[in-house]
């Protein structure tokens, strides 16, 4: 088991990067959310050796393994659009399904067909 103080420190590192990302987004007015910028900042910090990957390992794995859970509150918001979804369910569902499969096929096949 990891000592609780270590976990608190790791969480603090994540929150620090989050704030840095939000700050960059605010200052540059980029149309990219702070969390994505923070992800890139974390990657840069690891690559430039400002941060060792062991320093955030446990918390990073915990967050990655439970990502699905963190989505649920937003997903329940589906209930607010019941009327519109009922009215336009056909174009919406066909467009979503076909377009999603096309994206999967385009990206998947371009990467998979790589000559070694």
């Amino acid at each position, binding site marked *: 088991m990891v000592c609780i103080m270590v976990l608190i420190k790791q969480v603090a590192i*994540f929150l620090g990067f989050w704030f840095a990302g939000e700050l960059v987004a605010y200052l540059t007015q980029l149309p990219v959310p702070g969390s*994505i910028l923070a992800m890139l900042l974390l990657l840069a910090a690891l690559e430039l050796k400002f941060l060792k990957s062991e320093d955030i390992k446990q918390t990073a794995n915990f967050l990655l393994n439970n*990502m699905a859970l*963190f*989505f649920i*509150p937003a997903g329940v918001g589906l209930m607010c659009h019941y009327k519109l979804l009922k009215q336009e369910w056909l174009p919406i569902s066909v467009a979503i399904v076909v*377009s999603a499969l096309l*994206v999967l096929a385009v990206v*998947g096949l*371009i990467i998979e067909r790589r000559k070694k």
Partner: protein
Amino acid sequence: MMELLNSPLVHVSLTLLVFIGAKKLQLRYRSPLLNPILLTILVMIAFLLSTNTPYRDYKENTSIISFWLAPSVIALGYALYNFLEEIKSDFKRILLAMISGSITGIVSVFLLAYALGASKATLVSLVPKSVTTPIAIEVSKEMGGIPSLTVAFVIVVGVFGAIFGQSFLKLIGVKKPKSVGLSLGACAHALGTASISEKGPDYSAFGGLGMALNGVLTAVMAPWLVKLLLFLFF
């Protein structure tokens, strides 16, 4: 009684319990239809409707859960770091695939929904469907869509990708962790990535990369593409 049920304590613990139960069900029966995210969302909607609780209350009560969405997106930077060499060695192809994927997603969803008679607000809100929620909200706002509707679409795509993505990719012969991760990340953002994260760290790393690249590329390209599409069709 109803007031007692409408509290952070009840909403958070119920969400956690249902999610754990749904995960156990999926482990036991191994059916992709028993997707824990979808099951939990449906059970919670049923609970809120039967207790007459507005979504606004649930959203506030469970903010302690959704708070961790951003940190988990940031954690993808850690997953990426572990595969940086592999990414660098193949960066051109990855970029080509991601740009093609992003344009395919934007144009195809617009044209299909247009052909089937969706309203203009729906069309524009559909465009950022494959993008991770925080980016999708920004893109939708910028193009004149309805952000909360976009969030609903983002979730639908994510759940669809999480349930059917892997089997579809297998069907068309896409098997490498790299191609599976990148395409699911590009198509179904964090939900797609989450659906393969248990298969190994390489899957989640490329899922994260696919999601990040698709998010940034769509944020940059969608406003222009949509302007062009709206000009052509309206």
